[in-house]
């Protein structure tokens, strides 16, 4: 008699693949390709590492996330919606991008400004934009702002606030001009005007004192611009220029990058007599060692004779 020894092994992460299965299925089992969506495998390890570093007093070198510590604002006027944004992206206390674009395209009649983690806002805008694209193809009608709002808030709620994206969605559809603001945890409000980002307090104070219902386009643009400028000068996370996007009920959209540029460095630098050593002449840095490696063997290959049929 043969003794049958039974092993219980946790093989839930492996699939039992027969040898007779096609090669590509066997390869997939051995080298699982990364699937779409988020991968939270490293979350526990990162948390543990951070706690350990903190306990030992070592400064952790976990990658810094680029934030659009930002001022964005939106407002509905008589014939449409105006969105405004500053253009500074920070990583910690350093300015990572002096002129980044925070208002993104969602649909021909809907645009969205994003504050928070730059990667998150960009991907959220891309996601909702492509989903609305498909929806337009299947329904054959113009996208509605409320659809963009619903898709975004459901996505953000699903991730329980881990996607750090605070958005202002504004646009015009068949039911009129609309503006929504959406917070990272998934709540949203339908509003006549709003601001988001680290400079939101500076900007909302300007909007609250100058807003009135049914403004003209000039008044609305002026209000949005002043709100953003207030954020630029009074909030350290916002700076550089002001971008304005106007979406009109007529369907016309005007996107102005650098609508107002109050922080042109050229004016400042023109006041200074630069030392000539700023221009480093060629040969200034001593070459200590140089070596050359043959990287490619360039060969002349004559084209083969075309095959005669």
């Amino acid at each position, binding site marked *: 008699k043969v003794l049958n020894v039974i092993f219980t092994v946790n093989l839930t992460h492996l699939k039992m693949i027969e040898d007779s299965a096609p090669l590509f299925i066997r390869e997939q089992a051995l080298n699982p390709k990364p699937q779409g969506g988020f991968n939270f495998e490293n979350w526990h390890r990162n948390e543990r590492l951070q706690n350990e570093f903190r306990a030992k007093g070592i400064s952790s070198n976990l990658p810094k996330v680029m934030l659009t510590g930002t001022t964005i604002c939106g407002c509905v006027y008589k014939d449409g919606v105006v969105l405004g944004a500053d253009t500074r992206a920070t990583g910690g206390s350093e300015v990572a991008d002096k002129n980044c674009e925070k208002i993104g395209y969602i649909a021909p009649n809907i645009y969205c400004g994003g504050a928070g983690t730059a990667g998150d806002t960009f991907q959220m805008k891309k996601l909702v934009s492509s989903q609305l694209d498909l929806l337009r193809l299947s329904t054959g009608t113009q996208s509605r702002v409320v659809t963009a709002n619903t898709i975004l808030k459901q996505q953000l709620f699903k991730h329980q606030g881990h996607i750090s994206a605070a958005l202002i969605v504004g646009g015009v559809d068949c039911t009129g001009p609309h503006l929504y603001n959406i917070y990272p945890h998934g709540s949203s409000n339908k509003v006549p005007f709003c601001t988001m980002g680290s400079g939101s307090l500076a900007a909302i104070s300007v909007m609250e004192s100058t807003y009135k219902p049914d403004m003209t386009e000039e008044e609305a643009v002026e209000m949005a611009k002043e709100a953003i400028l207030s954020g630029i000068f009074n909030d350290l996370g916002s700076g550089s220029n002001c971008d304005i996007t106007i979406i009109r009920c007529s369907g016309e959209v005007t996107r102005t990058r650098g609508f107002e540029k*109050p922080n042109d460095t050229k004016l400042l630098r023109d006041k200074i007599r630069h030392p000539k050593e700023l221009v480093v002449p060629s040969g200034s840095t001593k070459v200590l060692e140089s070596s050359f490696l043959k990287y490619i063997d360039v060969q002349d290959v004559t084209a083969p004779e075309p095959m005669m049929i």
Partner: protein
Amino acid sequence: MSTEYQILSRDQTKIHKLTEKCSLLSAGCRADMDALWKVLDAKMVMYKYSIGKEMASPAVAQLLSNTLYYKRFFPYYSFNVLAGLDENGKGAVYDYDAIGSMEKKEYSASGSGTSFVIPALDNLIGFKTRTEPKPIRSVDECIELVKDLFVSIGERDIYTGDAIEICAITSAGMKTEIFQLKRD
């Protein structure tokens, strides 16, 4: 002067004149900077009246180092740079950490924008990694260089901006100038 993302003041000076030939520049916690300045002022007045003359810069440098180390176990959260003329009339820059480690240098920086400006100073003033001979600069050239450097720091550091106060100490005396920067 700022906290996190808010500006608390756009015109707080970080330079404190100690003698006609010596200035202290501090960065860090405002309260500790003010306390340190007061303590130093008091000590310098006492020196002046007991010894009979103004304190010379190397002596001030040592005094600052000792004052900081005195609070080794509850430090002044201030990162100082002392700039002045020594007894021979030559320029001297002393760099300190929070507990008084002193080093005499040709140039120095401290504060949130340090990592942006030290490489530029190494290249333009220390003339490191440059094969040309180091130029001898006049006071005005140095002032223009400092303005240019600060414009660059202001671009990339959110805490640096509004205005800079430049204090030039020469044998002729102390000259202060304020140069406006970007306010964003």
